[in-house]
């Protein structure tokens, strides 16, 4: 049996560590869009690829962003 761990959120959290809220989607992509994160052990995406599909334009808190990310993944 292979053990599976969800590690995407760990790397996304670290990539967003220096973000203050509230922040707009546009400013967020400006700030972190080019940062690469592991979404699985052997798969990397940019934060732009993860944030762009979100249909919300402004995030008042980290909670709102992470929930939106989770819903769009």
């Amino acid at each position, binding site marked *: 049996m292979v*053990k599976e*761990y969800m*590690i995407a*959120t*760990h*790397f996304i959290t*670290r990539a967003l*560590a220096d973000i203050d809220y509230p922040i707009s989607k546009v400013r967020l992509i400006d700030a972190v869009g080019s940062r690469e994160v592991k979404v699985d052990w052997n798969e990397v995406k940019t934060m732009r690829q993860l944030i762009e599909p979100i249909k919300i334009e402004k995030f008042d808190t980290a909670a709102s962003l992470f929930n939106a990310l989770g819903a769009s993944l």
Partner: protein
Amino acid sequence: MNIGSTHAIGGKVETETLSVVGVQVAPISAQTIDDVDKNVDQLIDYMNKAACGFPGFDLFVSAECALQGFHPTLWGKVLIDIDGPQIRRLQDKCKELQVWGVFNPLIKPREGGSLQNTAIIINDQGELVHKYVKMNPWIPGEPSHPGWECPVTKGPKGSRLATIICADGDYPEIWREAAFNGANIIIRLSHYMSPWDAAWEITNKAMAYCNQCYVVGVNSVGIDEAYSYIGMSMVLNPDGTVIVQAPKGIPWIIKADVYPGLIDQIRRKCVTSNFMFSFKHRGAACPDFGGIGDTKCRYEAYKDWAKEARLP
């Protein structure tokens, strides 16, 4: 948490939040290097669990003997090199997860001589940035070379990290040394066994309070050829109160957020109960000493290190 003193503390406190994960595991009591490699597999697995359960955490802390156990007769066959493959695997993992890690290898010194019971800290770039050799081996059972200093290393998020190992914690001196050298977090990696269950708890709480530091105490579980290891890993506030505590005797993961900047504020702004000041300035409020206090060492236990304790 009751920080501060009788006197109000003014001004703002600036601090980052350090997320710490501690894992209490039962290591294999290694008899071969294969066993050591399996213990490293276990640690790496727990690092993955930590990333899964506590995304974005900063610091991973494991227990004493988590790499090798401490077999009563075969421990000498499983000593490893400080730059060997087992440590490199942990370095690679820290770098991959972008976290700092604290580990305890039993090292075969390059220059020869007896084993060194060592605490290392690896940073989030996979670099080995801290090495501490246990200053108070658990004699007579532990034949390791006693260490010679208690270094403090700048860690993430404003932390200044000291490491002590297991029986070290039975000696107030090492805790004071760590705080005196600037630590705001003292990490105690342990392989502490029954029947000293109460002592584990008492020493962690008392020494966090007496030295006004956060304490991260991570202890083993399991039963080997000789002992049962009690677990009860804990993270404590600088007033000795418990933030989080693991149960006794079973593998567990604890996690706590601590605020290293608060300790710095205590050091700078506390008036009463500022032990780092008052222990070296006894009676500083007494007019006879001009506001500085008696700064001579008056303790018979420390004045002459060669002198032995009085026996009844």
